[in-house]
């Protein structure tokens, strides 16, 4: 079933409690997906590159060398970043196995990902100047507490509560997906893609990597590929309606925009609230009401609609 949510503040000063808001929205939709919860949050754009990566999963078996191996791999990641010329500012250990690192770097982001992911069990969750993807098992309050998201200040965010249908319950299978190798682009998706393998093979042949067996990852990479060819976010999303088969409502975010697309059957739900200062959208109105405490005018977008807002 899954639940998706998005929020974007329109006044552009970037000082909004998006972490706290998104937690409230996702927690109220816990019944749509209790397996895992994920966030793509946008803080103020920085000169530094911010990377979130993980070296293990919450439910990985802990053998005797687990801690030692993790330390070893972490040191390996740092060595590789330095090797590529990145000047590391700060490394934060978010959980026992997930890290946030900021560094100065002006080369290609693809090189960073490829070299870091060469370390065993390493997965880059997000990379960019403002995007931070946080995802883990459990409900929104658990994840927010674990990663201390309540204090996250930014401009816009999307989130996802997952009920796993076609791939494993682990961090790799959780949404949002970062659009490798493009910085600051992420996607959450509710639905199923039926031509997933076709697109996965096609994109792999043109050099993209897939970290999970989840069909939703293909949307992020698909959009990234289109944008690399010069399409705008909105045009890329419009093309996806023709080229991706299946039932879907997905939300895509970039550094300064948030877009939503709905398949031609309108099979998956979405409720939209547009006000002067905020646009909030979610699979259920109850999620929007978690952050807006008065009666509001909302509506369901129609089949085949693509909408984009900027902050």
């Amino acid at each position, binding site marked *: 079933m899954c639940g998706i949510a998005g929020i974007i503040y329109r006044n552009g000063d970037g000082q909004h409690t998006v972490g706290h808001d998104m937690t409230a929205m996702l927690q109220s939709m816990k019944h749509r997906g209790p397996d895992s919860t994920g966030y793509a949050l946008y803080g103020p754009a920085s000169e530094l590159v911010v990377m979130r990566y993980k070296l293990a999963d919450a439910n990985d078996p802990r053998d005797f060398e687990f801690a030692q191996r993790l330390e070893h791999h972490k040191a390996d990641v740092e060595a590789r970043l330095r090797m590529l010329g990145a000047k590391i500012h700060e490394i934060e250990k978010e959980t026992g196995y997930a890290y946030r690192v900021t560094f100065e770097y002006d080369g290609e982001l693809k090189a960073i990902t490829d070299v870091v992911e060469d370390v065993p069990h390493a997965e880059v969750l997000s990379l960019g100047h403002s995007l931070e993807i946080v995802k883990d098992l459990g409900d929104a309050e658990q994840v927010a507490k674990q990663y201390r998201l309540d204090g996250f200040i930014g401009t816009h965010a999307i989130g996802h509560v997952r009920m796993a249908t076609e791939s494993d319950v682990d961090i790799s299978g959780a949404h949002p997906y970062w659009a490798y190798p493009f910085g600051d682009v992420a996607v959450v998706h509710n639905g199923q893609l039926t031509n997933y393998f076709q697109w996965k093979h096609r994109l792999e042949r043109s050099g993209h990597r897939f970290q999970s067996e989840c069909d939703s990852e293909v949307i992020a990479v698909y959009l990234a590929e289109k944008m690399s060819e010069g399409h705008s976010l909105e045009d890329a999303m419009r093309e996806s309606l023709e080229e991706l088969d299946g039932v879907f409502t997905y939300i895509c975010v970039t550094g300064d925009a948030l877009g939503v697309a709905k398949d031609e059957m309108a099979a998956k739900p979405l409720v939209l609230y547009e006000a002067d200062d905020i646009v909030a959208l979610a699979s*259920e109105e109850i999620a929007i009401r978690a952050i807006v405490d008065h009666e509001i005018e909302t*509506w369901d977008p129609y089949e085949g609609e693509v909408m984009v807002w900027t902050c």
Partner: protein
Amino acid sequence: MDVLAGERMITYDARGLVEPDDTVPRVSEIDGDRAVLDAKTLTTRQINLELRWLLYQEGVRDVTVLNPGAKHSLGVGILTRCRITFDGSLGYFGCGLIDGPEIHIKGRVGWSACENMMSGVVTIDSNAGSLTGAAIRGGDLIVKGQVGARTGIDQKGGTIIVLGRAGSMTGFMMQRGRQIFCGDVGPGLGDSMYDGTIYVAGRVKSLGIDCVPGEWNDSDTELIERKFRIYGLGSPPAFQKFVCGKRLYNYDNLEPSERKLVL
């Protein structure tokens, strides 16, 4: 209870899906046969239990529910004649499985509002989600805003009136009853319908399989004028009528084994 070493304590609510509270809160302000219920801090189950208590045991005939807060499954399974006003929006499955009440929703409803309604009247002041009036068997459902996709799917009776626009596959597999749309409707109108009538005043993006324009007659005019008059919807616009083409009807064809017996 302490968690034992090596064991994880699993309670019945491990996935957070069960609402355990099953006592009637009895917090409504009752005045004769009228009552006001503030639902702000109540759970879905508490609100529904309170409604049942008011209507079935306290003899209340007119309930106003304040702050419904877009919660799901409110006002379901009410099987008595009464009047209920929701002063706000409802979530999914609002007012489903009802038989008899006259309900006024002052906000919006989510998916599957009034699913399987048997009789009664539901008026929604704002928009409605997809699957509005799914499988209704009777009664009138009036939406003053716009509706999502698949309105009146599997409808078996009653009347659905929508003043705004409607999405794709409207009237999908409808079997009986009437649908009246004052705005535009999306692609696949009346797809695979068996019977019943759909009236559209706006533009139809495309007709579904086996849905064809119907012949207008006096009973259509009478029906539309009567419904608009009853619900105070002003003077009706000009409608087109759509019915089932019955090209997909194969009911008379015998199964091969049966044919052998007959022949």
